[in-house]
């Protein structure tokens, strides 16, 4: 399988001396294309730091991070920004959208920042994929929480990124809406690179191809629930 993201002996610590906090310790992980990976663990286990280092939003104290074969842990800020714009998608728990822009403008933002021409047809196709046909000219304030998350997913995927990161994307949604949003993230995996979801939610983790469990900054478990179910089904057949 193609490796999209490669973390090699990644450590991240904050502070110095006796007060040093080790958010990540010597973490190794390889994530493959067309997989949905869930990163789980209790609060303070290093989930968010993992996401930030993997996505180039933070620099590891030691170790290397490679995205699609390029080492991002050594990149300069400007190079990283361009990479984020074109090769990485983000979905946060909340405050994903610029309230002053319409849905369509929000979705097209990464492309526009990259200097591409405005392409409303492309935005409409993407919005149709996330089930928001006809809402292109609405403003975020006119949408429900679930709809706003869908717009965020549409924006994360519009550049056809190598990898999309979602930080508690269902954290502020009800169960029904949460499973719809998760469904979209799963579907996305079949069309683009990899998706990484940081989550507290066991139902989200259960839908992942692979689950990385962190505790005190270390990777303590690496399982494949869906693979396991599939293997079991094949064994029974």
């Amino acid at each position: 399988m193609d490796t999209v993201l490669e973390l090699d002996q990644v450590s991240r610590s904050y502070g110095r001396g006796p007060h040093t906090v080790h958010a990540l310790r010597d973490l190794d992980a390889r994530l493959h294309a067309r997989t949905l990976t869930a990163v789980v663990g209790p609060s303070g286990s290093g989930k968010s730091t993992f996401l930030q280092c993997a996505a180039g939003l933070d620099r590891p104290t030691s170790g290397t991070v490679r995205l699609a074969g390029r080492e991002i842990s050594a990149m300069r800020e400007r190079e990283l920004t361009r990479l984020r714009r074109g090769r990485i998608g983000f979905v946060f728990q909340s405050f994903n959208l610029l309230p002053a822009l319409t849905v369509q403008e929000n979705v097209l933002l990464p492309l526009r920042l990259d200097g591409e021409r405005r392409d409303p047809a492309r935005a409409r196709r993407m919005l149709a994929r996330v089930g928001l046909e006809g809402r292109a000219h609405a403003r975020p304030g006119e949408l429900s929480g679930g709809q706003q998350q869908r717009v965020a997913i549409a924006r994360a995927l519009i550049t056809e990124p190598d990898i999309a990161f979602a930080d508690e994307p269902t954290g502020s949604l009800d169960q029904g809406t949460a499973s719809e949003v998760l469904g979209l993230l799963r579907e996305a995996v079949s069309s683009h690179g990899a998706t990484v979801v940081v989550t507290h939610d066991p139902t989200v983790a259960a839908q992942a191809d692979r689950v990385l469990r962190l505790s005190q900054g270390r990777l303590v478990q690496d399982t494949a629930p869906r693979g396991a179910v599939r293997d079991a089904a094949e064994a029974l057949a």
Partner: protein
Amino acid sequence: MSLFAPTTTGLATASVRARPSAFAGTFAALVFSATVVTACVALAVSAAKAPVSPKQAELYDVGVAFSNLTVYLAIFVIGQVMSLAVAQRGRESALLRAIGAEPKQIRRMVATEALWTSVLALPVGYGLGALLARVWFDGMAANGMVPDGMTLTVGLIPLFTTAGVLVVCSQLGGMIAAWRASRTRPSAALADSAVQGGGRAGRVRATAAVAFLVGAIGLSVAAGAGSVEDAASEIPVVLLAYLVAIGLAGPWIGRAATAVAAPLLRRYGGVAGELAIAGARARSRRLAAAITPIAMMTAFAVVQFVSLTGEMDWMAVFGTLLYAGFTGLVAANTLVMLTLERLREFSLLRTVGAEKRQVRAIVVAESAITALAGLGGGALAAIAVLAPLGQKVGTPLSGLPVWVWAAMLVSGTGLVLAAHCAPLARMLRVRPIDGVTRRST
């Protein structure tokens, strides 16, 4: 109930901590106001105490005129900055409402905070004002303008006047702003998708704007019919009436300026221009808060420079520097406050892939819209006052050379740009992911 009820004081302290930049902005505006009021009143009082002579009488009149105008300006400035500071904390007060604070408690919280800010700003402003009065007095002495037997004494009268202006204005300004804040539904202000300063400007605001405009026109007609001396002393008052109208009409002026600038920004501004247009349209109330002090600065600069074409003595030059300095500082302070509240927005843009220079370009494009609206509004106000009255008081508008207009345009735009962008360097050093999750600065 006492104003210092423990819960209210606690809430006020928490509110200051939640948004230190709004507090700092209010504090700075109060200090600037206290400085100019103290200096002008000190001069008037010192002149009054000097032995009677024609020179003394003239200086006393000038001192009183300066004092009146600075007090009016201070009222206007403090009202503005208080309303902005309260509006910037809309989220926090909505949260307090949501957990059960009554509108009355929010209003009391604002009042407590305004009072404490005044109490802290007073000694600083008084000290700076005493210093300014000394510089002023020494300058006059060097130019032989000090009447025989006059000495500079700052003393208690300027202190009490300044204290009164600070406390009364900040309480009134806070009351009006808090009344508006306490009427908004908590759910609306708490929503993440709410635009900062995006509330629709209402009919009350439009009506008040028209009323002040009509009042200003009426005042200038009355001044035109009266004596030359009266007309001269009424010019600043008429100007202030126009400025209040501009402040009230700010959201509509902002919209008009955006419409004028939009084709150019779209054509040459790229994605930054587009984002600036969208932002200016959505945040019309905040745009209004930026326009008003710039208009004030411009209007007073134009009127002062025109008056210099009549007589250019030391006093007139000093007056021009005083008003240009004061209004310029107030405008810059407001623009800094407005940029500082947008850390989340800039950080979100950066996580989506905006480079630092693109964020800067957006703010520059917005500055262009703000400068157009503020400088344009201010110049129009000055023209509206001087076109009918300038000739009468001996300083017609036509006396102002074109190069002075050009210099004002360039320096005004430069100030807007510099102040708008000043906090960016620090804000862009915050890691984007931290900025998105952080609620305030």
